[in-house]
């Protein structure tokens, strides 16, 4: 099992086009671990949003490193999947952002800021920590209740 073997790890470059490589790698990992499509899709969404944020913002501006490092670690099972995104960019805790205001009409609607909302709404658990100059964002998704066996650990 993947869990017993430790996380599957992918290192990414800092270009936004790396998300495509991430998605190809991820598809192979979830297929190999027998993760059902719904659950695999939930974590794929969280990963896309988290990595897109890192690649878009973590390495720009004052204090940003000129030697970007981004790593994704996956722990996969058919009922519970988690992804940790680690980067050495500017310290940023996505959970510190206030929840997006409800949209009322198209005229006043902003066109951005949806990514963090999606992570919050999709993941069962999201944790952030900053350690040794790195951001660690861990996102956990669990299978929907009807897809779990009665004795599955929650």
């Amino acid at each position, binding site marked *: 099992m993947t869990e017993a073997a430790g996380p599957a790890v992918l290192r990414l470059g800092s270009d*936004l*086009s790396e*998300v*495509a490589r991430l*998605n190809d790698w991820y598809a192979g990992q979830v297929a190999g671990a027998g993760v059902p499509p*719904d659950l695999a*899709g*939930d974590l*794929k*969404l969280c990963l*896309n*949003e988290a990595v*897109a944020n890192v690649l878009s913002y973590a390495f720009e501006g004052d204090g940003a490193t000129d030697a970007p490092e981004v790593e994704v670690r996956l722990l996969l099972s058919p009922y519970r999947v988690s992804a940790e995104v680690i980067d050495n960019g500017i310290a940023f805790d996505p959970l510190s952002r206030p929840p*997006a205001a*409800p*949209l009322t*009409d*198209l*005229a006043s*609607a902003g*066109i*951005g800021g*949806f*990514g963090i*909302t*999606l992570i919050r*709404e*999709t993941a069962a658990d999201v944790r952030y920590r900053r350690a040794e100059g790195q951001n660690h964002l861990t996102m956990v998704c669990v299978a929907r209740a009807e897809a779990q066996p009665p004795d599955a650990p929650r």
Partner: protein
Amino acid sequence: MQMTQTELENGTLKVTLTGPFDIAGAGDVDLPFSVIAGRAQKVIVDFTGVDFLASIGVRVLVKTAKPIDKRGGKMALFGVNEAARKVLSATGVDTLIPVVEDEASARAAVA
């Protein structure tokens, strides 16, 4: 991501998308959607072939719908799978851009 555009009767434009609406997909369709945003009045978007929707795709949809709405036009989505529906609902965008079952309902929604 592939996009095809079909002019229907009474000025409705049908946009058919195929593939993942992720960062790469959004890059493929951002420009044609900008052109649509600048001139179309009634737009229906067929999502049947969209197997993944990320926030960058939501951004493109909202960016397209805003100027259409400003001109008094309408845009609606149909054929949206369950995962993409969740994305549109979690972001609240389904309250601004109607998400309906099929093409007939979408045509009615923008008529």
